[in-house]
């Protein structure tokens, strides 16, 4: 394995772990599509940050995008609660509008903005090794993206391990959580802030569509494999990592798009879990009624 392949797979794996950890909480809150919405809605934030700062400097872009991501979730909540529009309709209207706003900004300022729609939607993970972080003394620290996503992953791991009980309880039973004094709104927006952060860190290398695939696919696969949230988080991160490595080699073999290949592997994993899962799979379900009857008889 040459060094470029190593960096590409590592980037893919880091993005996959970030997305699939957050995705577990999103699908349990029945909010998988909010991840989709955020990953698109950050676009105007990125473009505006770009226009104001005039460079592709990471921190301004992160802040711009994170603000838009949280604004997007706020708008979704607002339309759903105050205007009494259905949740899915409210998601659809909000993120398409914000994304379109970003597209218009890009096309109007095409000359000044070093971004295009293709880059935002599909990314290009194969170019990761080209953008190297060189220190002032000329030391090669490896690709910049790896450092950014690595940093985000460390933050996420801290967030999830330290505040696991809050995230768990507010996802399962918001009413009880409020009753014991946890603010469901606070944890909702913290989670959405984390989703925005991940999306922005990931979009440059893998694109918005792969972010969505990674946020929903591996968690859904893990959901079929276990009944324990901690195991689900681990399995989901594992599935995401495997998908990004396997996807890379599939793309190499086909000489095709890496992001596309990763998404296909994710779909394949889900299909396998759907058929062969020991607890929820199609094959297991045929046997299950007898097993349950036996268990209840004991």
């Amino acid at each position: 394995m040459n060094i470029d392949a190593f960096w590409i797979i590592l980037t893919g794996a880091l993005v996959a772990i970030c997305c699939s950890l957050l995705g577990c909480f999103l699908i349990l809150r029945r909010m998988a599509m909010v991840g989709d919405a955020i990953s698109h809605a950050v676009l105007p934030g990125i473009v505006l940050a770009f226009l104001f700062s005039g460079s592709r400097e990471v921190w301004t872009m992160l802040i711009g995008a994170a603000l838009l991501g949280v604004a997007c979730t706020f708008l979704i909540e607002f339309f759903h609660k105050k205007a009494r529009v259905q949740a899915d309709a409210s998601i659809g209207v909000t993120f398409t509008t914000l994304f379109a706003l970003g597209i218009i900004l890009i096309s109007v300022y095409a000359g000044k903005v070093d971004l295009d729609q293709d880059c935002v939607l599909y990314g290009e993970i194969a170019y990761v090794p080209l953008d190297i972080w060189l220190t002032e003394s000329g030391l090669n620290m490896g690709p910049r993206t790896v450092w950014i996503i690595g940093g985000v992953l460390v933050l996420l791991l801290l967030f999830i391990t330290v505040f696991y009980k809050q995230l768990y309880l507010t996802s399962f039973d918001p009413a009880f959580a409020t009753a014991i004094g946890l603010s469901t709104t606070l944890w909702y927006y913290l989670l959405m802030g984390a989703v925005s952060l991940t999306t922005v860190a990931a979009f440059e290398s893998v694109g918005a569509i792969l972010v969505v695939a990674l946020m929903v696919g591996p968690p859904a696969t893990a959901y079929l494999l276990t009944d324990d949230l901690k195991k689900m988080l681990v399995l989901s991160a594992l599935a995401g990592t495997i998908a990004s490595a396997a996807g890379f080699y599939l793309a190499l073999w086909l000489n095709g798009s890496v992001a596309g290949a990763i998404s296909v592997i994710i779909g394949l994993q889900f299909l396998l879990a759907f058929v062969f899962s020991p607890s929820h799979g199609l094959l297991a379900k045929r046997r299950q009624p007898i097993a349950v009857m036996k268990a209840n008889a004991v």
Partner: protein
Amino acid sequence: MIQHVTNPVLEVHDLTVSYQRKPVLWDVDLTLPQQALVGIIGPNGAGKSTLIKAIMGLLPLNSGFVELFGKPLEEVRKRVSYVPQRESVDWDFPASALDVAMMGTYGQLGLFRRPGSREKKLAMEALEKVGMQDFANRQISQLSGGQQQRVFLSRALAQDADLYLMDEPFAGVDIATETAIIELLRLMRDNGKTVVVVHHDLQSAQDYFDWIILLNMRLVASGPTEETLTPPLLEKTYGGRLTELSRVSELLQKKQFPIRETKPTRK
């Protein structure tokens, strides 16, 4: 007939709550005594669940205030426990019965501490009290409705509160579970706790509760069971609907059917 007590566990003062500008509770004013099993009774849409949600601060109040143990909720949260309706959560969630019971201990843990062996022990004891210790590691979707309700109760028990507010703990459970639950609630009352239960069934209310709150948007009555469960007050709470109900039950009683069968169907 609204009877007030001195040194109340719970005081609801001039409470008005509305959804979308439509009032659901209107000017409710009541106090509850210590060490009592309290039933909140009224027809569908009377605001029974709304009342306990408002007490727990889950809904914005239009007017009035709620005091628990003579203090606002924020100061005494750890002494109050809430059991939501069973249907309000997703039972396919990846959690075991023990995980759910353990959630009762989260309130004491603060922001950073994580549940450890002490919390696990508390949760196991709570599961034992409801007879669910053998199902501790069972995934919650694989439990029956009655078992799920018991797991919800065990979570409240793990909180070790002094006042319990329960939203329809008897909805959709079989008779055996209902009996087991009411035995447990009586035991809690005898240990000095106050338990407030939203309840649907008039027949059983008579022997279950010491204190009854009759509610139909406005407070009709609040007082000891024998003084509140009277035909005129029930008539006032249920309007015309009750007469039909009692006629049916009289008819069935004459034919000597078991009284249980006359239970009104729950929603």
